[in-house]
């Protein structure tokens, strides 16, 4: 195992979370954006409700721009990307310059667009590409297994959280839970076993997990 301090472990974990948050919410945003083109103009309200962020937008147009690019909005994509970058930039030694570059480029695309795009699902595809490239590069380049396990622990916890909030099908939730637990056990992070067991029990209910959705999220949040 390489030299990973408490702060670095924390940075890796949150890098995983924020990167995943940008990726999944951006993909979801594209779906809702599509709906708002010629369907329900207020679909963004459902989006805010599902991912539990305050609806401060007031209109479709405002949401479409601010949720992506408003650096003052702590829930915006760009704010989350900034946080991913803040955690990544201090991990150059562990991630490597070539891997870190994908986080830098994803952020640069968002900053470069700066709210000017009128075709976000087209213009911001690059952000998704860079983040996927980041994960690929990370798998390939980061030698330290513990380092990979911690960052993926963050990634799958975030994904599980979002999938549950967004009401994904049981199969998808079960798959992500399995990935999360696999990394959790190998990460060396200390966690609450009883919360893991509670989650496992709920996920095992199949589609019935949704009946205990709140409890599942609570267990997930208190696992560390």
């Amino acid at each position, binding site marked *: 195992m390489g030299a990973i*301090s408490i702060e670095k472990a924390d940075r890796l974990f949150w890098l995983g979370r924020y990167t995943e948050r940008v990726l999944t919410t951006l993909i979801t945003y594209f779906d809702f954006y599509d709906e708002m083109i010629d369907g329900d103009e207020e679909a963004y309200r459902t989006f805010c409700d599902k991912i539990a962020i305050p609806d401060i937008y007031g209109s479709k147009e405002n949401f479409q721009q601010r949720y992506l690019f408003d650096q003052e909005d702590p829930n915006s994509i760009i704010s989350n990307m900034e946080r991913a970058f803040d955690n990544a930039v201090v991990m*150059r030694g562990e991630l490597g310059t070539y891997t870190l570059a994908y986080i830098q480029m994803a952020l640069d695309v968002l900053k470069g667009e700066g709210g000017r795009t009128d075709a976000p699902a087209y213009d911001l595809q690059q952000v998704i590409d860079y983040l996927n490239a980041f994960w690929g590069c990370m798998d390939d380049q980061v030698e330290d297994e513990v380092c990979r396990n911690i960052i993926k622990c963050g990634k799958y916890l975030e994904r599980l959280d979002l999938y549950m909030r967004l009401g994904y099908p049981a199969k998808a939730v079960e798959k992500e839970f399995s990935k999360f637990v696999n990394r959790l056990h190998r990460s060396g992070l200390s966690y609450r076993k009883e919360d893991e067991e509670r989650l496992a029990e709920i996920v095992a209910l199949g589609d019935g997990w949704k009946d205990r959705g709140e409890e599942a999220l609570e267990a997930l949040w208190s696992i560390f």
Partner: protein
Amino acid sequence: MFELVDHTEDINRLLARYGVKFGIYKNNEFHEQLFPFDPLPRIISAEEFEFLDRGLSQRVRALNLFLADIYSDKKIIKDGVIPEDFVYSSKGYLPQCEGIVPPGRIYSHISGIDLVQGKDRNWYILEDNLRIPSGASYPMIARELTRRAAPSTFSRIHISDNRNYAAMLKETLDYVNTGGINVVLTPGRYNAAFFEHSYLAERSGAVLSMPQDLFVEDNKLYYRQYGGKKLQVGAVYRRLSDEYLDPLTFLPESLIGVPGLMDVYRKGNVAIVNAPGNGVADDKGIYYFVPHMIKYYLGEEAVLRNAPTYLAFYEKDRNFILEHLNRLVVKDVSEAGGYGVIFGSELTKEKLEDLAEVIRTEPRRFIAQEVIDFIDLGIVEGDHEVPRKADLRAFVLAGEKTRVWPSGLTRFSRNPDSFVVNSSQGGGFKDTWVLSR
């Protein structure tokens, strides 16, 4: 060379991609900026580099002997080569370092020596940076990228490879390592040179550490791992200033630093690179005496010249400075990074008088130098090549041997009327090619 110019934008784009930036504080806010890169390199012939190598190694060897002497016997003072007051009134002199013998007896492991080449083709030393000189990472990564952009240039011209800097750094750290891992100690990501800290750590295989990652136990320094494990640290390449290294020795109110680090160092259980207290030797006032040190410690004449310098501390020099203030460049010895540099020729009569008054009141604070009319180097601006002032920061690494890195950071002013090349003042950088034959 044309290929390089054609790829200027691509290279700068790649530098942005890899986060090659420096930080700057403006109005108490931190901003990260790209360091503008110019593709036209400074070219140094093999013969010229051989000369620089001799002069720079000689200088750093003498400076290391000076530091060893100042923090022990002080023979150079006793022998009247350097006035006592001049040493003890230096802000960089740290009484807390008295009697400490660092591992390998090396004080300045990584020296950044700033030079310019005059129009008379002579090289002049402008200043020595023996505390935490930065800048090696920029030409190092720029070379990596320019080789990609213009491969045929590099197969046609025989250029010494400068990408060995990280290996040289590792050898330097390993040489003084007292047992354990090497760490690069950074104050954090909001430091102006954070890119360099993280890049050099990555490339040299050292562990990038924040002060809170390190702790002292039983007179040893450890890196605290998550999960309660610890790793002993044998060498700290510190990139934070002396006064923030250890609150128990220096600034008790400091929230950064590693409590007890200086005790571990004093006992010889860790190497600190560069050694605390080096500021006494790179003081702009002490600079005046470096040729004297070379003669004193090595019995040799200095190979490289200082810029003609006057010390306001000496009455005779002070009078000269006051008489010729309008043609000299005055430097505040306590400033760095291009700050506190005043060109007399740029001041109004009233401001000259104000400056003269400050010099009279605080003579130890200032040196004055003749303005060296140094050569211009071409930079690409739009579709044209335009001349700009440029200096060279050479890096000298002292381990088992004292070696000069066959490259360096060439900084240039982007302002046609300015001699100030510092990145913090808007300057850019070039690679420095040393021809291998």
